[in-house]
């Protein structure tokens, strides 16, 4: 039964559903980019900087995008390729989606990957992943406008504080994320340190070689990853 269910999960119809969602994401990005471009013209901000920003996004995100590659393949084996494509293209990391799928399967009385996994169980996990993602979508829909007006109120009081607040929030988030990973194991710790130190070095280097600025993140990422791979493999940690 698992085999038949996986066949259904990989059917063309599911690919179409997935395509619709992925297309939506791409369309949204395209429309936002166009809006940014148009607004840049209105405020006399150079288009070349808009393009540069876009390019920076592409370069910076390439490494992290590869990071989820392995997990994606694993996920595809369990729940099918199209739904994996769909769910990873939108809100919800691989671990979140797999957890949601597991919860859904359990609610239906099944186990992911079990031999008796039925189409009904598949429907339940499709539903569960979908409704879980809606949590973030709904909150973002309802609250983003409100958070914006709160931000304007804060800016109204002290314009200089706003960028500091933004940076502080970013520092808080990344310090936490980094700390979480750093305590996870030697390899992760080395990777974290490698990324951090390389970035500090790149800050100095890029002052001299300005063209490297866009690649700072990519280089730091590669160095951190390679260092961690070397340390764990050479020293067997």
């Amino acid at each position, binding site marked *: 039964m698992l085999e038949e269910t996986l066949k259904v999960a990989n059917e063309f119809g599911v690919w179409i559903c997935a395509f619709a969602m992925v297309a*939506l994401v791409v369309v949204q*990005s395209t429309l*936002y980019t166009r*809006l*940014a471009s148009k607004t840049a013209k209105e405020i006399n901000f150079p288009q070349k900087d808009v393009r*540069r*920003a876009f390019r920076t*996004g*592409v370069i*910076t*995100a390439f490494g*992290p*995008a*590869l*990071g989820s*590659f*392995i997990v994606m393949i694993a996920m595809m084996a369990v729940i099918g390729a199209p739904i994996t*494509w769909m769910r*990873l*293209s939108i*809100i919800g990391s691989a671990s979140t989606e797999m957890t*949601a799928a597991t*919860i*859904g399967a359990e609610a*239906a009385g099944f186990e992911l990957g079990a031999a008796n996994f039925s189409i009904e169980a598949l*429907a*339940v996990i*499709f539903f569960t992943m*979908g*409704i*879980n993602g809606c*949590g973030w*979508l709904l*909150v973002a829909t309802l609250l*983003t*406008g409100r*958070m*914006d007006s709160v931000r304007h109120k804060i*800016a109204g009081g002290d314009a200089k504080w706003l960028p500091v607040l933004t*940076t502080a*929030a*970013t*520092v*808080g988030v*990344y*310090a*936490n994320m*980094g700390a979480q990973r*750093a305590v996870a194991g030697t390899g992760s710790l080395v*990777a*974290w340190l490698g990324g*951090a130190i390389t*970035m500090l070095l790149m*800050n100095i280097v890029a002052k001299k070689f300005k063209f490297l*600025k866009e690649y700072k993140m990519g280089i*730091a990422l590669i160095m*951190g*990853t390679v260092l*961690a*791979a070397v340390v764990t493999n050479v020293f067997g940690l």
Partner: protein
Amino acid sequence: MESKNNTVPRTAVLPQWDRSVHRLGITTLIIAMALSFGPFLYLYIKYGVRPSFGVLMTAWANVAVAYGAMYIIEPLSYFPSLGTSGSYMGWLAGSVSQMRVTSSVVAKEITGVEDGTQEAEVVSTAAIAGSIVINIVVLTVGAIAGYQILALLPPVVQDALNEFIVPSIFGAVLAMVGASRLLLTIPVFLVLLVVNYGTSAGWLPIPSWAVLVVAVFGTILYARVLYKKGKLR
């Protein structure tokens, strides 16, 4: 951050920008919510599969308990880093901490724009869009040719891709944002190192969403104190 490029003008965020951003964002997110149930409805239409209402509600309740706090806390916590367009794009496309905020922060830094300006909004939007496009490309390649590519990768590379890319990103971003604010960054990181060690080792039984809240709002409070004392610009 590097010293600000003094030749970049600083324009206040235009009201029509805000309006357009909200309109586009709300529309696309509502469509996304509807499309989320596409695969489920497909199975119903083609195979008549109709799981019982009870099972569906149980699944929903369980997943809401697991992630409900995150639905609210994450958008709130990341809003300062993402902004409005970034939020609509980020909460649709996901991968906020790894790809969206990262791209936005790097792009703003190298173009020399100042946070809170229309220029920053433009740059952040373009950067996040770029990150989404490359992400989708990689995912699409993975969905189509993933197995074949995986077969070509030696285990050492697979491990590296799996385990080390993410921590190195986080180290790099913290270094980039925090290097010029060590008084803020270092104590915060050390405290969080201890806290996270505690939660993972078990002697500090705090749920991860609570740690995130404390991390973000604690750092903001600490920054406020430093700012008032003139020790932070």
